[in-house]
């Protein structure tokens, strides 16, 4: 990059500046956790359960300790760590508390559950050690499906939850909703449509697996844990509690991170166990998850079952929505979100972009003998949006209306809008994005191409409309009744002698480009080059308690905190300049060129910093030495909603049932884009993951709970051959209360894609009368539907 200097218009925000992260990552000089090597470092591997559900009668590690290279092996009793527990403040009929032991003790609840940690001089020897472990089980009937969980016939997964239900909430239940459904059923013109949908279990699948390097430092009297997590402070808190340490005795730092997508925004058992082993042995211990572990024993997501019905008037207006959603959360409640993460998100947000006058929902989390669930990009929204969009399509069919027109009649157009779900939606472009998306596909000639193409393939077009609440503040999370309530962010900015600044953030970039975008935000506030700003993230000793990065919160909340701190620092600089010039602070201003204009004098920041640090006797009486400011930001109300419409064109191959995506258009509105190219990157990457869920990826198990997709041979991750180019159009409805008017942009792509793809497939199957409501969309079902038609 050349001399970034100053942008002529003084605004870095909105410019596609070169990413600060790129040079090191491109040169192979990034530092990911597995790149860290310390003197005398040992390597950990885990003895894992081979049973889905069993009492553990013995864990014998004596042979393990004989394996050459093995230094130690610890089971749960050896390490004596407290359990990881995440709680909701809800009554017993709504929430059943359970705990996740760091290492399983008397019972195992999924294949791959860690039972013991083996530590050796090299990773190969650690693996050999694992092979030598002898675990004896008394098998129990595994609870593998939602149906089995709800039947509750055998031994429950957790004794505390005899019915295998961890969360059960019934919400909203608008008065008179039953009468609305009854009247719609009875009326000649109105309709009641139902959708029963299942969505497959998926792996967020960061390309870098989880990992940790932990080391006890005698000089700092501290356990230094370098781990790939999206939530470093939460890891610190849990580790301190599990190991009985003070928080000051734990420092969590995060190196470069190869993606997370939610899988790394919960506290993992292995990072706690490896750190405890390091403390015990007083030697550095590294654990790097292998791909098999990542696919079978990491945190998973998305397995949900919806039974939804909606009443529509004859002219296509939605009258009422009634939903039952059951989320299969696997074996444990994750920290800090609990097993409520998916059902509570779905229940609270399902009406989405539509004006729904009556709403009732029951949301449940069931526990099964499968690897546990963590949030995954979009959290429930890809699923309930898919169900809402199916309801729209089905109603349109029954009413003989155009499905886009039905959406048009139902989307929220006046803001702020207070929804039936007690959520206030800030302004967005729900109708405009729908219109533009349809227009783009029309202009490209796709709308007239439904039906059969020259190769005999069936063409179909599908849309999805959605919004995404971003910037959940403490208030919004408190409504979920989490006992640990995320939301705010605190930023500290310090200017050094030469006028460059260092800014901390509690958020944590792992691909989202915060080193660049946060620098743009700060540089604009101070009127300096964005290369003069250094962002510090992912270090619990250097950063005040923060909540990390998830739920598209970073730029909205973290960025706003950094902006607020920058403004405070600017005020500090102005008061020093005012004093030096002998003028009132009101007649000073930042000059946008790295200085303060005071009266008719200009003070470059370096000159003011010189006074602040080296000639403090010249400072005004009410200004202390140094140049540091701290600010926090929280979202008071219901957050801010990004929105988008996706349009997708597919071709179905009657010979194979295969789906090819011919065109994909995304019209998105995330308010003001700090860095438009980064926003587009988030949208494209998100869409790819949504398509992956719609067509390809599924974590499957046999009836005994043995995972059937332990490698990339079985777990089909789409490549460039399957993921299409995506055309992106931007609309901009600025947020009124975040710095720069930005809204979150991290998850939207993933949210809209399954619905758009599924609707397109159903459109292509229209002539067969078959409608599919499951993801990944079963190719066999497409094939069957098309062959039925060929045969007839």
């Amino acid at each position: 990059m050349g001399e970034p200097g100053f942008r002529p218009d003084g605004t870095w925000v909105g410019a596609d500046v070169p990413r600060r992260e790129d040079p090191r990552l491109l040169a192979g000089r990034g530092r990911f956790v597995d790149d860290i090597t310390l003197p005398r470092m040992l390597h950990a591997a885990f003895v894992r359960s081979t049973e889905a559900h069993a009492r553990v009668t013995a864990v014998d590690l004596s042979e393990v300790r004989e394996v050459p290279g093995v230094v130690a092996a610890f089971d749960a009793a050896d390490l004596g760590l407290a359990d990881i527990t995440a709680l909701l403040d809800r009554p017993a009929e709504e929430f059943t508390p359970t705990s996740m032991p760091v290492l399983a003790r008397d019972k195992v609840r999924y294949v791959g559950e860690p039972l013991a940690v083996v530590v050796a001089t090299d990773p190969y020897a650690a693996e050999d050690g694992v092979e030598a472990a002898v675990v004896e089980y008394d098998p129990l009937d595994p609870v593998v499906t939602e149906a089995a969980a709800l039947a509750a016939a055998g031994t429950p997964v957790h004794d505390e939850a005899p019915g295998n239900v961890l969360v059960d909430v019934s919400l909203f239940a608008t008065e008179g909703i039953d009468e609305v459904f009854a009247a719609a059923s009875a009326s000649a013109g109105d309709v009641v449509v139902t959708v029963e949908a299942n969505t497959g279990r998926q792996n967020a699948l960061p390309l870098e697996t989880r990992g940790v390097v932990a080391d006890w430092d005698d000089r700092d009297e501290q356990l230094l844990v370098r781990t790939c997590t999206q939530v470093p402070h939460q890891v610190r808190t849990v580790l301190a509690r599990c190991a009985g340490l003070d928080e000051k005795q734990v420092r969590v730092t995060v190196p470069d991170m190869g993606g997370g997508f939610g899988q790394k925004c919960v506290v993992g058992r292995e990072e706690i166990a490896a750190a405890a082993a390091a403390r015990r042995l007083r030697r550095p211990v590294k654990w790097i998850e292998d791909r098999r572990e990542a696919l079978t024993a990491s945190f998973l997501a998305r397995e949900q079952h919806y039974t939804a019905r909606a009443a529509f008037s004859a002219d296509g207006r939605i009258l009422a929505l009634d939903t039952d959603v059951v989320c299969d959360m696997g074996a444990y409640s994750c920290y800090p979100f609990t097993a409520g993460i998916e059902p509570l998100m779905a229940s609270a947000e399902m009406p989405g972009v539509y004006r729904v006058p009556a709403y009732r929902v029951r949301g449940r989390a069931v526990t099964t003998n499968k690897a546990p669930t963590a949030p995954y990009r979009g959290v429930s929204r890809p699923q309930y949006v898919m169900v809402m969009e199916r309801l729209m399509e089905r109603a349109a069919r029954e009413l003989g209306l155009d499905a886009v027109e039905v959406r048009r009649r139902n989307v929220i157009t006046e803001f702020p809008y207070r929804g039936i779900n007690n959520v206030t939606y800030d302004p967005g472009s729900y109708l405009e994005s729908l219109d533009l998306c349809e227009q783009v596909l029309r202009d490209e000639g796709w709308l007239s191409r439904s039906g059969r193409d020259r190769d005999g393939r069936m063409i179909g077009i599908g849309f999805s409309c959605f919004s995404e609440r971003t910037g959940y503040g403490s208030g919004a999370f408190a409504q979920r009744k989490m006992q640990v309530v995320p939301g705010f962010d605190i930023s500290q900015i310090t200017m050094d002698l030469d006028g460059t600044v260092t800014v901390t953030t509690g958020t944590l970039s792992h691909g989202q480009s915060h080193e660049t975008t946060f620098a743009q935000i700060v540089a604009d506030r101070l009127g300096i080059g964005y290369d003069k700003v250094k962002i510090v993230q992912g270090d619990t000793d250097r950063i005040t308690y923060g909540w990390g990065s998830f739920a598209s919160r970073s730029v909205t909340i973290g960025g706003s905190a950094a902006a607020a701190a920058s403004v405070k620092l600017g005020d500090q600089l102005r008061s020093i300049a005012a004093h030096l010039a002998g003028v009132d602070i009101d007649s000073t201003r930042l000059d946008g060129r790295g200085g303060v204009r005071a009266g008719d004098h200009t003070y470059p920041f370096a000159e003011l910093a010189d006074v602040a640090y080296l000639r403090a006797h010249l400072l005004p009486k009410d200004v202390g030495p140094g140049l540091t400011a701290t600010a926090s930001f929280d979202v008071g109300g219901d957050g801010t909603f990004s929105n988008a419409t996706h349009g997708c064109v597919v071709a179905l191959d009657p010979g194979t049932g295969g789906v090819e995506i011919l065109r994909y258009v995304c019209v998105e509105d995330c308010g003001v884009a700090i860095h438009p190219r980064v926003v587009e990157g988030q949208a494209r990457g998100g869409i790819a993951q949504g398509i992956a869920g719609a067509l390809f990826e599924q974590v499957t198990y046999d009836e005994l709970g043995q995972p059937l997709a332990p490698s990339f041979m079985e777990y089909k991750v789409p490549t460039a051959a399957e993921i299409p180019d995506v055309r992106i159009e931007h609309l901009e409805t600025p947020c009124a209360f975040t710095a720069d008017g930005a809204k979150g942009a991290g998850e939207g792509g993933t949210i809209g894609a399954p619905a758009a793809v599924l609707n397109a497939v159903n459109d292509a199957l229209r002539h067969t009368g078959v409608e599919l409501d499951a993801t990944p969309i079963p190719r066999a079902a497409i094939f069957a539907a098309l062959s039925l038609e060929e045969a007839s």
Partner: protein
Amino acid sequence: MTDVALVELHVNGERHDLAIPPRRTLADVLRHDLGLTGTHVGCEHGICGACTVLVDGAPARACLLFAIQVENAEIRTVESLADPDGGLSDLQQCFSEHHGLQCGFCTPGFLMLAEGYLAEEPEATREEIREVVASNLCRCTGYQTITDAIDDCASRRRAALQAALDTAPEPTAGSTA
């Protein structure tokens, strides 16, 4: 575990003499014995391509090779692409300009894949490039910008070559084919 092999490796133009267990993969040797941590490991079973390096100019999965198998080969890793003073190569520059990387974990693999491919197929079309991009996994970008970056680099190299040919002195009659 007990036996150790003496292996001579040639990596990025440097010779290394190593005493390593024969079962040690090339990926592990590059990363952990030579400290060339730019080569990443995403699956260790040959699918993701994060470990792609060049072996005698051709892209290869370093997780599927034992170091001992490539003793006589010339290995190139991502660390060889930039100038010694840190200046990015044209390919790296294109990745940055097109936002062909987000977390950057897959990036060294894609860079080496592209470096090997474009050397073989300088005339590749965008569609052909996309097919090659389909050899590796990226979880962040959706592949479009990776394809764009490689395609742009290919056109720039062709343009540069053309420019060099245009300014080269007229060939003498005898030298034309």
